[in-house]
Each structure stands twice: as C-alpha cells, then as structure tokens.
C-alpha cells in the first residue's frame, strides 16, 4: 500500500513538450510509472518521449481518451495557475504542480476554485511524490528511495532527499514520500497527509519536515496529538535563520503565532512528536522509534 499514487495511477504531464516537462516525463516513465499522455495546447496528435506518449490539446481530451487521473505540471509560472484549473475542471483527481514562482494572487484564485471541485493539488513549487517501486510523479531522484513503511512529508526538496537517504542507510524503506512545497499557498497541507498515512496499513511511522515561517507545522502538531497514533519524527529547518527582515507588522499580526523554528519545535515536542535538533539524526530516530 501507499498513499495517493501507485503503479495503477494514470499519469499525464502538462507541458510535456517543454524541456523540463519532456525530461522529467521520461524519468517518470523510466521509473516504471504509468505515463499515459501529455498535454500541450496546439500540439495534440503529436507523440512525445521518442514516440512513446501521445500528446493531447487539453486535459479534458486526455481524461476522455486515456482516463488520466493524475496530472503532473511543468508549465511556466505565468500559465501554471490556468493549467491547474484546467486539470481540475477535467476531473483529474490528483494534480501535482512542480512549477516554481507562481504569483501568490494566482494561487489565491486557484485555491478558491479547487474548493469547488473534487481534485487534490500537491504543491506548487514542490518535488512531487514518490511511491518506491511503483510510481514517481515529480522530480525526486528515484534511486535514493526503497520500498518500506515510513511515510515522508516535507516542505523542502533536497532536505527530503537527505531524510530518505538516511532512512535507507538505516535499512528503512518508504511507503510514499511527498514534497508539499514551501509556498505561502499550497494545495495539500501536512494535516491532510498525516490522516492519509495514519489510514494506510503499510505505513508504520511518519517523518514530517518543516521550515520556519507559517503556522502549518503547529496546526499539524495539535492534530497529531489528537488524531495520529503512529510515531511522528519531526524536524524544522532554520534554527539559525535570522529573524525575518520583514517590514511593517502585518505578517506577525495575521497569524498571531511565533513562526520561528524554536517555537515550532517546542510545540511539536509538547504534542508528542519525536523532534530532532539535528537534520543528521532523522534516520536513526525513526529507527529507534520503530524498534520500540
């Protein structure tokens, strides 16, 4: 088992004829993922990735013709919001947006629109998902991971790779690794994934990696205390980051919460998470928890 994606996921890549899109579509295909098509408006009817993948003009067409249920987006930032909405409108269940640099107000609109649909968005500005040996939907290097029972949730890209690498060094594989992205507005928050991992019978422990800023980790910590029985190992990057050189007061006032790494780690500990001070201790702490 796993969460969100597996070998049966029917994946399409929006922006498949661009350089990023074609490179990563090929990688996802090489990993063994079921990439059934690509979307580039105006290039429908062509074949991409050495003639292996059909290109469609729209997500609607891809949904109808090949039954796509997962979309991976590599569309440039100015057009990415529209691409997300297009796949949601076509009824695609899971949308994974890798694109970095989407204007916040575009995402405010996307966020409001998605609430009117049944689609789930991962990202934007994230490395995507990886269910080892089954499917890679994003840009995570597949070879560093192996199949197992640890679920990984992370705001960061390369720090996720670091955590996965440490888990493998300890002989621990992963059920699914999810990079949720660190932008101000993201489609899927830590809480959503905690519930999915809690419900997944093959996940035995969860790694949750956060960063300074925002209050998502604090909300997740309170949720864990109430609803999550599996052990959660946490880390917050940015203990040494200088206090934000922010201007005015609005940022602090809107949440009213202390968004420093120290404050988040304190609350996470109080809520029963196993918090590590050093990012080098993630793997061994998971090992210790699972050996109990």
């Amino acid at each position, binding site marked *: 088992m796993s969460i969100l994606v597996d070998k049966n996921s029917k994946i399409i890549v929006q922006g498949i004829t661009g350089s990023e899109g074609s490179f990563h579509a090929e990688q996802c295909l090489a990993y063994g993922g079921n990439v059934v098509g690509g979307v580039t408006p105006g290039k429908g009817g062509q074949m991409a990735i050495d003639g292996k993948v059909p290109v469609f003009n729209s997500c609607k067409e891809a949904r109808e013709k090949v039954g796509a249920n997962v979309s991976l987006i590599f569309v440039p*930032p*100015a057009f990415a919001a529209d691409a997300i909405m297009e796949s949601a409108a076509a009824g695609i269940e899971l949308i994974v947006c890798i694109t970095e*640099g*989407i*204007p*916040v*107000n*575009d*995402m*405010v*609109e996307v*966020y*409001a629109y998605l609430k009117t649909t049944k689609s789930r968005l991962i990202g934007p500005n994230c*490395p995507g998902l990886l269910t080892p040996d089954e499917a890679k939907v994003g*840009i*995570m*290097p597949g*070879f*560093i991971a192996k199949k197992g029972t640890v679920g990984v949730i*992370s*705001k*960061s*890209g*390369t*720090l*996720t*790779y*670091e955590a996965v*690498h440490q888990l493998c060094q300890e002989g621990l594989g992963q059920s699914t690794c999810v990079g949720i992205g*660190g932008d*101000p*507005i993201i489609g899927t928050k830590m809480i959503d994934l905690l519930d999915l991992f809690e419900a997944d019978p093959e996940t035995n422990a969860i790694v949750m*990696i956060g*960063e*300074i800023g*925002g*209050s*998502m980790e604090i909300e997740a910590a309170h949720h864990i205390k109430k609803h999550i029985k599996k052990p959660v190992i946490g*880390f917050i*990057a*940015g*203990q*040494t*980051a*200088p206090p934000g*050189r922010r*201007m*005015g*007061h*609005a*940022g*602090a*006032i*809107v*949440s*009213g919460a202390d968004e420093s790494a120290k404050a988040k780690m304190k609350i996470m500990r109080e809520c029963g998470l196993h918090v590590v*001070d*050093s*990012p*080098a201790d993630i793997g061994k702490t998971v090992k210790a928890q699972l050996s109990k």
Partner: protein
Amino acid sequence: MKIHEFQAKQLLKKYGVPIQDGFTIDSIDDAQAAIDKVSQEFSTDQFVIKAQIHAGGRGKGGGVKFSSSKEKALENSRNILGMQLITHQTSPEGQLVRKIMVAEALDIEKEFYVAITLDRSVGQNVVMVSTEGGVEIEEVAAHSPEKIIKEWINPAFGLRPFQARNLAYALGFEGDLFKQAVSFFLNLYKCYVDTDASIAEVNPLVITKQGKLVALDGKFNFDDNALYRHKDIVAMRDLDEEDPTEVEAGKSHLNYIKLDGNVGCMVNGAGLAMGTMDIIQLKGGQPANFLDVGGGANVETVKNGFKIILSDKNVKAVLINIFGGIVRCDRVANGIIQAVSELHLTVPVVVRLEGTNAILAKELLETSGVSIIAAGSLADAAEKVVAAATKGA
C-alpha cells in the same frame, strides 16, 4: 520587493486613497524649495521631515521630526538627510538616509491600524483593522487579538462594500467619516490587488481635527513572483536600500543572505541549506551565510558562490553540501575542482556530495590533487568544517 513611504503614498494617491502629502528630495540644496512648496500647496506652516529608508521604526530612531516653522523644517532636513539611521529593523550600523520627505503636518485626533496581507492558513487575503493604531500593534495582536477585526476576501468577488462597512462600524465611524472609511478600504484593496502587493499597511490611519481620514504612513511589499507583470512597480526598486552582496548574488541567480559567523556554506535547496546551517551551529560553529545555489550547480555557479562567500572576510572555512537528485555530483565535483584551482583559495574547503553519481564524484575529487577535505555524512561534514574553521581562526 519593498518600496519607500513616498512611493507607497504616490500609489495610494493614484487609487484615490487620501494621504499626508509632501515632496521628496535627495539633496539639501532642494530643501528650502520643497518646504516653500509644501507650505504653499497645502497651506501650512508646520511640517514633518521624514527619512525615507525601507526599514521600520524610523520615528523612534530619530528619523521623523515635527517642525513648527520653515526654519525648524530646514534644520531638521539638514540633520536627517545623510544621517546613519539606526532602528530595530536596520543593521547595527544603521542605514544611510539618502532621501527625505518634506510632508505637511496634520492635526491628529485619533489613530487606527489598517493592513491587507495574505492569511496563509485560510488561503485568502485579509483586511485587518484596529482602533489601537501606532507602533504597539504587535503587542495588541499577541495579547488582545479580539481588538483586531478581520474581513477575509473571496478572490472571485473582491472586497465587498458590506465588508468595508463592517470594518468601518468596527472602528466606530459615523456620518461623513463612515463614508470616507468605506471608500478608503475599497480603494486600498483595489490598490493592493491590482499591484500584486503582499503587504499594504497604513499605520497609522488618522482622523484629523478637520474631520478628514488620512493615511499618515504607507508600507508596501510586493510579490516578487508577480513583478514580471508590473514594470511600473519594478521601476520603483531602490538598490541603495538592499545589501550589495545580496544584489550581486541575485545577478548570478544565487540566493544569498549574509550572517555573522565564520563558516561559509554552499548548498542546493533552501531547506537543506537551512538544515546545514543548523547542524554547523549544533557542532559548535557559526554559519557565515545562507547560500542556495538552486538546481543548476555547475562550474559558473560554484565559482560565483565562492566569490560571494569569500567576499565576507570573517569566513575561515567553507562547506559545500550538495545532494544531487537531477543534478549530477560528478559535474558538481568538476565545477569545484576548477573553481578551487582558478580562484587560488586560501581557506579550507570541506566537500560533501551525495546522490546521483556521488561515488564517481568522490574519485574525481581524490585524484584531482586540489586541496579539499572530503566528507561522508552530513554530520561528518559539519564536524570537519567546524574543526577547520576553528583551526584557521
């Protein structure tokens, strides 16, 4: 991206938001003319001289002075223009004041707080108002959050008039002031959303003794990701207010922030970069910087990264920590070898390469003959660089 108060006020004025007006100058030779012009246009003999720097806390730092006559205004202009203004938001050395705004002085009856920003947890922009205007608003937020009234904005419909009325009622406005407040909020929101601002703050919003609602100050931040569609906003950027090394780093597409320690670091990805800084501190060192080289760690980025890190004379050792996913470690290794030999580095360099082609990269570094300390795990790398920095210090 940030702008100055006088630029924020120009924007607000364009959107029909009433402001405390004036003229901005960058040379003391223009002060007298500006004072005369303010006196004439706004029929006043009292002025406020306001330092224009990006950092907040200008008043407390002595950068804002009420002036009861033209003579006093000129004297204050002389004192403020060119001063090194120190506030809680500047560096300890302070910020050089290159521009001042000569503003009309207003008779203030009452102060309020108004701001619009994104509420991340809701995923919507929010207008926040409070009767507790002035500098202690963060205290209010922490201890009496009920005194901050909020209206969240559905992006499909924008700020609705009924919401603006709710805010005006909450601040206790009546009669003509109520009407002024409603249009103030609607226009402020329009300005915020049209310009892709990430913060629009008016603190304080004041009622004058003449019964007018006026923005006494204005602070705007803009969403960097949206600047591509706002050439007019980009034109307001003031590079003098930004750290020159950070500006230089930005030109090479490197994300750099200078800190106070002596261990330089070069990492791919912001999260891993922060994590690397954290572990350096846990091992007894102090990071000298945050530097994210992003996804394309090649010879040029590594070279530019070294140049920027080493422009900080406190740096006694450098740690390169790259976790190659799409990035191939052997290419990074070649970049490091070339950069180290071309730049004739004198500080010890600890290198940790993990991920794609890491073994090949290690061999390349070992056989290259360049003086590099190779490290295995993240913890090993941190220990080695801290030891090297301590020895070199």
